[in-house]
């Protein structure tokens, strides 16, 4: 099982190191044990050359067909933090599987990630992850300030308020997969429309008992033009 095969998504809120600090990242990559051996991020904060507000829109919700997750694809400055933690988590989960002969449950993975992030609490690291799994459908939100929540609907990122209202309107347990996909796509589209930091395309993943499937990436520009045509027809 390759590292990329795990159904995990990360929504990045903001991050600390600037694009150029790659070597510092390497020094964090630790030996194969628990987070206590990780060197702590340095306490004096390096003044950043430019303001680092990142944005994205990711969302995930549970319904009768499993879990649906969606995200936009506009990557602002550094995805370094996100990529790093994704690799760390993937590696730890694979190690668990090799040592114990079974996969860790989603709630276990959430707890593991939360404990790994704990030494960085109070530093400028900021990572928010929504773990969607199917050991029974489950959805967890883990954040670097220590939050770990189970729920049925989450949206993370600067575009999340715009997505939340669409999801609150439309998400119910009894949706079909197609209906759920179209609500998720609409929610990400509305968020990218209003939020400057989200945009480009939308990725949609569906997690069920058979595993995860990724639907084809759709460019939201097409959606925007389709909607403009529809509005012109309505006489707006």
């Amino acid at each position, binding site marked *: 099982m390759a590292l990329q095969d795990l159904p995990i998504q990360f929504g990045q809120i903001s991050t600390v190191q600037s694009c150029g600090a790659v070597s510092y990242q390497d020094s964090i990559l630790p030996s194969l044990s628990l987070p206590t051996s990780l060197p702590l991020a340095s306490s004096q904060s390096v003044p950043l050359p430019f303001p680092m507000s990142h944005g994205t829109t990711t969302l995930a919700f549970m319904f009768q067909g499993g879990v649906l997750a969606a995200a936009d694809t506009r990557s602002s400055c550094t995805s370094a933090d996100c990529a790093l933690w994704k690799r760390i988590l993937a590696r730890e989960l694979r190690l668990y599987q090799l040592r114990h002969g079974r996969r860790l449950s989603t709630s276990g993975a959430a707890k593991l990630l939360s404990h790994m992030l704990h030494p960085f609490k109070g530093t400028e690291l900021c990572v928010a992850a929504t773990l969607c799994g199917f050991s029974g459908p489950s959805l967890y939100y883990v954040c670097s300030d220590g939050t770990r929540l189970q729920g049925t609907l989450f949206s993370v990122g600067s575009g999340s308020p715009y997505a939340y209202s669409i999801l609150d309107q439309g998400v119910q347990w009894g949706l079909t997969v197609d209906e759920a996909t179209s609500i998720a796509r609409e929610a990400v589209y509305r968020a990218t*429309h*209003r939020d400057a930091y989200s945009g480009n395309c939308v990725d949609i993943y569906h997690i069920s008992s058979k595993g995860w499937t990724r639907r084809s990436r759709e460019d939201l520009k097409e959606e925007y033009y389709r909607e403009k045509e529809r509005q012109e027809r309505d006489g707006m």
Partner: protein
Amino acid sequence: MALEDICGFKDTPVHRKLKKSGRNSGIPLQFFIPTLPNSVPFNPRPSLPFSPSNHSVTVSRPFPLSHGTTTLGFIFQGGVIAAADSRASAGGLVACPAVHKITPIHSHLVVTSSGSGADCMLWERILAREIRLYQLRHRRCLSICGTAKLLSFMLHPFKGTDVCVALTLCGWDKEVGPKLIYVCSDGARLNGDIFSVGSGSPYAYGVLDRELRWSLSKEEAISLAREAVFRATHRDAYSGNKVDIFHITAQGWSQRKREDLKEEYYRDMERRIMFT
């Protein structure tokens, strides 16, 4: 006006002969500029016992101000809809659950307010007074665009201070038709078809962007406004309680009865249970 007499403010004529067009018939535009505590006033007032002298003292507030609200306005074929919640918050406290955030200025103009509650109340009164004075002096109603410009100029001296008002003027002009203009104390003055202001505004925008069309009927537009405010109050902690909806047409503004969003929430829950 009574307020003017009590406070001893003097109406200072600004820019004499600013606009001497035929319409104004030679009367210079005058409007109210309250003096800032640290600036030299135009007309030195008779010194009141508590008039602030040239010391700059920042008063620390006993409680945190917060600007939580959800207000929105949009234009459609049937006129303009303005809607707002009714919660006033101060930090984590709900200071008042039944505030009126939409205020009529005259028969064809309402203004939705967000920002600091005290500032908004004051500036709404000032605006109403200035519009009435203009009407008495020039025998015609000032256009909505003109009102927005006037308000923007009146707020300009306070740019950079703690004054925080963000008003959306929703009205109907005789010449132009429906108009929606956003004015804020930072100096922004924007014309548009749809505005939502406040901490709950992103949530409202999601709903409005999805379903707003020009061709909505009046009932559909009202229920869209109500739904947008409901979704915002559901997610935003600083918005809530009730929703006020105003509808402005060529005949003037009309207000719907206030609705408690608690009822809407229970209806929504029931609908979900039916569909699961």
